[in-house]
């Protein structure tokens, strides 16, 4: 399981990646956790609720979220296509890419895709570590992927 210290390490990596304000991260985590809780309250079993929440993640939009501190004035945030999960997980993504310090806007489309996939991993890791002791398999997969 990812513990509190590990969550803190993830937050630092998110900061390095582009979401510089802790408040933005808190907001995003609250969004996913609320979505998850609503599903469980509506009778979905936790595992299915988790998978449904993961499937809802707006990976394309997270790029704009990460860059929201200084958005280009002439670009509207995209209303993006739903991105399926876990297919969106890049197997090769590791914390090394995160700590390399690149900014999403300067990257090639491939690197940009990779970067917001990594952000998504991190946010989910936090969600899972805080709320889902029943899903140790996924937590350990994320921890392994993030080299924690």
């Amino acid at each position: 399981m990812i513990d509190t210290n590990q969550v803190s390490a993830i937050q630092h990596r998110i900061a390095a990646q582009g979401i510089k304000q802790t408040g933005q991260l808190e907001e995003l985590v609250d969004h996913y956790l609320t979505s998850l809780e609503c599903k469980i309250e509506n009778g979905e079993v936790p595992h299915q609720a988790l998978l449904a929440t993961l499937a809802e993640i707006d990976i394309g939009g997270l790029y704009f979220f990460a860059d929201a501190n200084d958005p280009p004035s002439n670009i509207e945030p995209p209303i993006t296509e739903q991105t399926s999960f876990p297919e969106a997980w890049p197997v090769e993504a590791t914390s090394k890419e995160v700590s390399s310090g690149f900014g999403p806007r300067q990257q090639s489309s491939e690197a940009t895709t990779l970067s917001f996939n990594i952000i998504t991993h991190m946010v989910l890791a936090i969600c899972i570590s805080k709320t889902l002791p029943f899903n140790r398999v996924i937590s350990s997969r994320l921890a392994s992927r993030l080299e924690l």
Partner: protein
Amino acid sequence: MFAHKKFLNGTLSTILLALLQENGRMYGYEICQKARQATDDTIHLTEGAIYPALHKLEKEGLISSSKEVVNGRTRKYYNVNQQSIEEVTSQIDMLSKFAGHLQTLLKPTA
């Protein structure tokens, strides 16, 4: 179901202002759910779209935010600034009238 995205581009900020003006203080997930419910599950606002738009509106001074701890975690609520109500109402009216004109163009009476 998700075919309305391109029509939302350019109108999202005004839609957010309208929802906030109508419902008062709201948080992001609540806004998404409200939009779905109000449109019979037709319009899905995603987190990647609404949060940057909300942050931009806040930067422009049209809305403000406050944080509250709910169920042990921080939740950020947004509301329309009292000083900006006139401008917000004006924006909503403009979009509403524009939508009316579109309706006229799309379904002209014989």
